[in-house]
């Protein structure tokens, strides 16, 4: 590449200016942040978390799938009949499968269906292993996927200890009955998972699963805010996380006591 001195200096100056501008822009963006939910503009948080109140969830009965249906509708999750190629964002697993290390500790919960989804870990192994940063962690704790950057190596699936990631083994579009135009459909060959409804948070709405639950079993909020509902529940009730021994520090909690 040919470049004279003047152009080089100009480009360098612009680059430096950009570097200096970045922190300023950061500060400006942070100033606009509001914590908690309920504003008409985007809702933001220091660390998003979901609490599943299993007492209420189990009261709803095993046939209730409102949250699952709402999520899958909102995100164009394909309904693939082949169990081993299914794409799942939120689904139910028996207690002893969701919490294998708790086996024998809570007989009263054995066989009970527990909602499972991406834990949006504080220290996510999937983000650590991704070779292209197609999966990444936002400042507010949401572990996100860039469907356009993912190369489909499935290293994140090997790294996730919660089985929360799904790969599009085939073209998913024929398996989406009604497409929600507000959210992209995916192509075959990429990985996907729960995104804590970041697209709804950006519009000031709670996650689709939370909004769909008629029993108030799902509570979403900002863990950094001491007055948030999630923080209050965690202070008052006995809650557990999936596989805490792995050090991933999940942000999905289950009220079991």
């Amino acid at each position: 590449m040919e470049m004279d001195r003047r152009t080089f200096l100009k480009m360098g100056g612009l680059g430096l200016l950009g570097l200096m501008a970045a922190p300023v822009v950061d500060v400006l963006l942070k100033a606009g942040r509001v914590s908690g939910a309920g504003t008409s503009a985007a809702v933001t948080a220091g660390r998003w978390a979901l609490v599943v109140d299993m007492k209420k969830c189990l009261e709803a009965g095993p046939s209730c799938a409102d949250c699952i249906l709402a999520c899958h509708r909102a995100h164009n999750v394909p309904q693939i009949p082949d169990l081993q190629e299914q794409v799942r964002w939120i689904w139910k697993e028996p207690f002893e499968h969701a919490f294998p290390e708790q086996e024998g500790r809570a007989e009263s919960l054995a066989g009970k269906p527990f909602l499972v989804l991406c834990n949006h870990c504080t220290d996510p192994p999937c983000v650590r292993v991704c070779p292209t940063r197609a999966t990444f962690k936002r400042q507010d704790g949401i572990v996100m996927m860039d469907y356009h950057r993912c190369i489909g190596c499935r290293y994140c699936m090997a790294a996730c200890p919660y089985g929360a990631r799904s790969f599009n083994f085939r073209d998913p579009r024929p398996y989406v009955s009604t497409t929600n135009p507000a959210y992209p459909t995916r192509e075959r060959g990429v990985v996907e998972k729960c995104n804590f409804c970041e697209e709804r948070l950006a519009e000031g709405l709670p996650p689709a699963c939370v909004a769909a639950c008629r029993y108030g079993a799902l509570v979403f909020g900002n863990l950094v805010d001491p007055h948030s509902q999630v923080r209050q529940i965690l202070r008052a009730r006995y809650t557990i996380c999936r596989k805490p021994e792995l050090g991933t520090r999940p942000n999905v909690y289950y009220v079991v006591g």
Partner: protein
Amino acid sequence: MIEKALTGSRRYWGWVGILLALVAAGAGCYLLQLGRGLTITGMSRDVSWGLYIGQFTFLVGVAASAVMVVLPYYLHNVKEFGRITIFGEFLAVSAVIMCLLFVIVDLGKPARIFNMILYPTPNSILFWDFVVLTGYLLLNLIIGWNVLESERNEVPPPRWVRTLVYVSIPWAISIHTVTAFLYAGLPGRHYWLNPLLAARFLASAFASGPALLIILAFIIRRVTSFDPGREAITKLSLIVAYALTTSMFFLGLELFTALYSRVPAHGLPTIQYLFTGKDGFGNLVPLMWTSVVLGLVAAYLLINPATRGRDATLLFACAATFVSIWMEKGIGLVVGGFIPNPFEEIQEYAPTLPEAIITTGVWAVGLLILTLLCKIAIAVKEAAEPPAARPFPQRQGF
């Protein structure tokens, strides 16, 4: 020099033709996979890596094992390896190319592979594996080619080639260590989460790679007028013997901790699934026991000096070593790591026919490259010396 690969006997062209046919079949099935997605394979949401990544892992070992001839020859002046080092380097070249191809055929979006370079991610072990494998490929290609060219021109290789050789020695160790780190750093995959894994990988690599090199040396002696020399084979067979027993010892260490402590987080469920079957599932049990029996037989034949010294038994032992490690590492290790799944349920894996044909196709690409490179090397070596001559007197022990 490349023109030397373009002339050959009918037998040579027949072999190349067979390989090309296998490559074509693999390419055809790969087109099917490109069109329909990885649904045509036996992989699933639970066992999300299969035959492809298993072959990749195994072949990184074969590639790394070139160091087992390069190191004695260049660092310890083991002259016997002078006639065989080039084949070790070219074996490494073809093995690394197979590795890269196996990664590519495993990708859901192969067209985006350059995202690995466009968005370099130092925290990802896969990124580092890509870096070290590409580097190792270039190193071996440059070294092998230049050494061969100097041999043809009857001059010593340039000084910088020797520098590259010294770089390639730790580099070989690094490629297999990094490949082990792909697995050994994942929380929740108990069978892989094991600091011994890299050591075990290297030990099994230094058995399977030199075993293949011995087989290659026998083939070269049979089909060409070039003789790699019995001394080189004898020394290599000792390396295989030590490496194989070390590898089996390491496997035993892992089994002991898991079986005696009975702690699930030390891989007990996977070991039960692999060796005895679990909850009524046991697809891999015959494979794992075949691997164990072949390994034990090979170890006996290699440790016993009489059977190690006899061509027929040595060849059998080398083939048994190669197949045994291929089964354990190329299938059992990768598939086993996914079983049971994160929900402690068992979902089994079996490759499909198109998947097997694609795998064979990639192997054929590797064998084709190896054939062409060996053809060139042998032509150069045959021209450099009359077939009967044995120019290297033994100078220093190994």
